């Protein structure tokens, strides 16, 4: 039964990657990578039990932390860039 879940997770990761590649906006890509990270955490948790190595759970926990921080950092960066562009437009007009 673990293998069925692994299969579903890998298919979903492929769908998320497809969304990340076709875009079209940068926010779609951030959304897809966030999804991909969540699926990676789940895949690590399932793999830990398929392989019988509970150490993988530590990796899953750390990956969840890094994924969250990474998504927030990228969003902060793009939000900053968007607001700076607006200010420039206002100065020009």
């Amino acid at each position, binding site marked *: 039964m673990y293998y069925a879940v692994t299969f579903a997770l890998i298919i979903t990761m492929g769908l998320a990657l497809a969304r990340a590649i076709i875009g079209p906006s940068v926010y779609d890509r951030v959304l897809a990578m966030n999804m991909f990270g969540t699926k990676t955490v789940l895949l690590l948790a399932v793999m830990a039990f398929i392989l019988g190595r509970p150490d993988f759970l530590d990796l899953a926990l750390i990956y*969840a932390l890094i994924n969250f921080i990474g998504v927030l950092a990228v969003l902060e960066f793009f939000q900053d860039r968007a607001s700076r562009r607006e200010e420039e437009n206002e100065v020009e007009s």
Partner: protein
Amino acid sequence: MTLALLLDIVSWLLLSAGGVFVFIGGLGALRMPDLYTRMHAASVTDTIGPALIIIGIILQAGLTLASVKLVAILLFLLVTGPTASNALASASLLAGNRPEFAKALSEEERQ
């Protein structure tokens, strides 16, 4: 014996339901028309998918340290998933992207 069998059946049901929800969410994230509807689909894979899958694994693991770690992962995912979605939606709105239905509504008002 019967209790172990019951636990197996329940955890298998939870795991397969989680797999189905995750797959549906992934399909929606690929096929939906604009960013906000895609987020709606993707949030399914951020909340109910992990909840079902991790509770299914916990039932298989029993009362061990692994279960404690799994509960920590689940709680963390349940807190951070909606937070990241919220940040993404507000960043996209601030950048000037409007939802499709809002565009349709404003066009109707203009007519």
